[in-house]
């Protein structure tokens, strides 16, 4: 049983690192601002010494797309979110801008989320947005990975671009963080793989024609060439779970929220790159 379950992994992952031309030593700068795409791993990481942004694993052409805000296709969606920010929606006759003067007020938020609120619940940015929509605007909730939500996440995240990711993992967050960590190392699905199987044990290696990254989420939501739209963190988690033939948790579930906190903490120290470009 052990052998058959490992076979697909062995077939998929071959060490071809020498063939890969992606620039792990390239420097990411956008509009003159330099980003930290590799740094020492946070103290809580036991098996990794250095952490790398997913940007460092991409080929030159994909890297270049993120280095200019006009070339970065994410900004099509950021533009839409800017319009949405001013748009009145719901029974209260309010727009985002009725309470929040501008999106710039969200500076720093993306770098510290998810966090535990005063009620002791782990909260994420999509939930903050939907709370505003249902409680203050009297509007419908947005779907977790819908076009409007992912665009607004992009706009809010952009306000923290360049800041080091710094989520709290102690105090009231500790129990959520432990739960997320357990999920990260839990083998699941027909291929019997955990997040760590690819993103801790095999980053830098090839999985078919893909260069495996550390699975850092400092650039989300991210524009993917694959589907030409902004992709959310939970949307990506879902995709990974499908790839390993597991039944994915629901977007917004307690499991994914805890996993988001843990995975975010693995990137503590890397610059927020929202909205990034990946393949």
């Amino acid at each position: 049983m052990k052998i058959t379950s490992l076979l697909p992994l062995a077939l998929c992952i071959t060490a071809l690192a020498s063939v890969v031309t992606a620039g792990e030593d390239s420097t990411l700068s956008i509009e003159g601002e330099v980003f930290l795409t590799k740094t020492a791993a946070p103290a809580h990481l036991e098996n990794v010494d250095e952490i790398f942004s997913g940007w460092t694993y991409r080929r030159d052409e994909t890297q270049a797309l993120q280095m200019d805000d006009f070339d970065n296709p994410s900004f099509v969606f950021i533009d839409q979110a800017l319009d949405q920010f001013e748009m009145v929606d719901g029974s209260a006759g309010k727009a985002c801008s009725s309470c929040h003067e501008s999106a710039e007020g969200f500076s720093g938020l993306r770098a510290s989320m998810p966090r535990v609120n005063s009620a002791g619940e782990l909260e994420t940015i999509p939930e903050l947005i939907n709370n505003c929509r249902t409680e203050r605007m009297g509007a419908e909730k947005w779907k977790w990975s819908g076009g409007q939500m992912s665009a607004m996440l992009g706009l809010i995240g952009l306000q923290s671009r360049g800041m080091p990711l710094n989520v709290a993992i102690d105090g009231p967050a500790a129990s959520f963080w432990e739960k997320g960590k357990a999920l990260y190392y839990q083998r699941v699905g027909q291929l019997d793989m955990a997040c760590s199987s690819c993103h801790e044990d095999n980053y830098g290696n090839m999985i078919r024609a893909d260069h495996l990254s550390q699975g850092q989420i400092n650039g989300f939501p991210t524009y993917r060439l694959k589907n030409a739209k902004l992709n959310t963190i939970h949307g990506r988690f879902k995709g990974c779970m499908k790839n390993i033939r597991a039944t994915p948790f629901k977007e917004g579930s307690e499991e994914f929220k805890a996993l988001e906190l843990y995975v975010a903490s693995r990137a503590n120290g890397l610059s927020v790159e929202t909205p990034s470009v990946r393949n």
Partner: protein
Amino acid sequence: MNFTRRETLAVSGATLVATLLPLKLMASTPDLISDITGGVKASSGGIDLTAPEIAENGNTVPISVDAPGAVAITVLAAGNPTPGVAKFNFGMGSGSQSCTTRIRLAGTQDVIAVAEMADGSFSAAHQTVKVTIGGCGG
């Protein structure tokens, strides 16, 4: 399982045919160039085509063409369901006869650029772009 020499040859022969088959269906690069030039022979200098050797995703492949003195540049993708990609017509206001865009490639194939010069002559360039099949990303 043991293969005799004859069986091995038969199997590898069949594999070779199977590999070549899709290529046959692909429009040939010289034919496509000839379609644009109306049979006139295109020279190989005078036009630069920049495309990645390996594209991470066939959905968005950045390419650039540059042909000083051209009135128009046609870009083709030999292995797409229809080879046409774009035709750039340069006017009096152009600062150079070059353009960068992003194109879709259905698979590994030749990207072709044919420039029509002011004197009616043609220049052509082509480059193979490998389109990878991702593990998770693609």
